[in-house]
């Protein structure tokens, strides 16, 4: 593989709701939920935000860091399970809003929370094959959890965008390899035209998240002949704060390797944005030579694992756009009734 990351960017909405505020409404014990899920608060999209606006802001940040002419982007893939339209791509809105139109290909991807990393793999292939100079992959969501469902504590909003190109002076990180693991596992789903997803309760853990994340990670480490000690950072899909720490321990990674890219406690589960914002947070801190493991997970089910090594150019490009920490720290709390209005659960 001779491809890498040329630029990256994220976006997280400003509004937050605390676990306490949701627990108060449903009579749950907030401390039990905070300890059980390792989540303190989650991001909430404003009334004028959706997956398209989040994807556009992340994409603009990625272009700023890449420092490239957006007309040289030959492909844009937007992965999400909350595209604003059922029919009409989000990717065309993004392409227009970053001035990449009209000489490119674009499409929307769907694979629960891993549609964004599937887009990275597509871009890697197209760049490697010489079909395009640069490709952009975005994972963005405004996740929905039914009122009173445990998912309501974590279903959040945010997105990450990555520009993939051939390795060279502009590359901030090299992608050493990728490995995927996919089966038909009905752990979480949403039927057509239904507003909220359904999930298999405890079934979402062992045979779903853990089996796929572990298998993809093991496959990649085996293929690249690497061990956990070779990595400075490890980022796993984070539906809550607990799963990624458990999976890290099972693989032999320490908390120190995982914590920089673990954002669920402060923003919740951003679904397709989750592992991509986690990777961005690791890149925000990485020194040249640092190796990062990223493993996404999408229900249904599958995992994509990547090994990524930061390069010298990362230092100069880091400050060209807002960091993950800047988005996390710029926040405004709302109460449950405002949340319900923003989510259109209350309509007059």
């Amino acid at each position, binding site marked *: 593989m001779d491809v890498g990351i040329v630029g990256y960017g994220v976006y997280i909405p400003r*509004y937050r709701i605390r676990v306490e505020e949701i627990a108060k409404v449903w009579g749950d014990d907030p401390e039990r939920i905070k300890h059980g899920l390792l989540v303190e608060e989650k991001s909430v999209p*404003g*009334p*004028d*935000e*959706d997956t398209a*606006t989040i994807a556009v802001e992340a994409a603009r940040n990625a272009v700023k860091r890449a420092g490239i002419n957006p007309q040289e982007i030959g492909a844009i893939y937007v992965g999400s399970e909350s595209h604003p339209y059922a029919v009409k791509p989000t990717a065309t*809105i993004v392409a227009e*809003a970053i001035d990449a139109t009209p000489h490119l290909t674009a499409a929307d991807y769907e694979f629960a929370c891993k549609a964004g990393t599937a887009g990275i793999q597509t871009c890697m292939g197209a760049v490697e094959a010489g079909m395009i100079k640069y490709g952009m992959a975005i994972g963005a969501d405004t996740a929905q959890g039914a009122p009173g469902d445990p998912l309501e504590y974590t279903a959040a909003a945010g997105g990450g965008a990555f520009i993939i190109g051939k390795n060279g002076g502009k590359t901030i990180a090299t992608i050493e390899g990728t490995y995927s693991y996919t089966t038909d596992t009905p752990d979480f789903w949403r039927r057509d035209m239904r507003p909220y997803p359904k999930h298999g309760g405890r079934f979402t853990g062992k045979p779903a998240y853990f089996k796929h994340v572990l298998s993809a990670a093991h496959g990649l480490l085996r293929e690249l002949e690497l061990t956990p000690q070779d990595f400075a950072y490890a980022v796993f899909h984070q539906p809550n704060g607990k799963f990624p720490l458990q999976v890290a321990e099972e693989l032999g990674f320490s908390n120190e390797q995982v914590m920089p890219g673990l954002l669920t406690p402060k923003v919740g589960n951003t679904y397709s944005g989750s592992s991509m914002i986690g990777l961005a947070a690791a890149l925000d801190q990485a020194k040249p030579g640092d190796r990062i493991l990223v493993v996404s997970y999408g229900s249904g089910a599958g995992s994509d694992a990547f090994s990524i090594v930061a390069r010298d150019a990362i230092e100069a490009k880091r400050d060209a756009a807002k960091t993950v920490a800047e988005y996390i720290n710029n926040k*405004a709390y709302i109460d449950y009734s405002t949340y319900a209005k923003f989510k259109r659960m209350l309509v007059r």
Partner: protein
Amino acid sequence: MAVPRFWREIPSRYNLIGSRCGNCNKVMFPPRHICPHCRRIGKLEPYKLKPRGKVVSYAITHVAANGFEDQVPYVLAIVELEDGPRLTTQITDCDPAEVKIGDEVEIVFRRMGEEGEDGVLYYGYKGKLVKP
């Protein structure tokens, strides 16, 4: 708003594409066909404005325009962009009490409205305080 009109205005609504006169160098937004200063000798070209500016005036709206009812009270501001032109825009993601004249604003991409439950979605620019 009709879909064709929205579609024609996408460059200015998404990317702040205005016009610059090659004769007097003035930047205009929204884009124009004729330079108001140079008239016939003006040479207008598309120009992408920088998405930064300052609040020069604002009003807090309590009686909303159609489609904005659930966002009251919200701030409508006149923002002077770094490139010179002024535009009227909502300041999003803020408590109206946070907005002050002179505040730095970045232009962000937001959903502006929709044509009912099954119509098209309109996107465009809004202002957001840089340091709230």
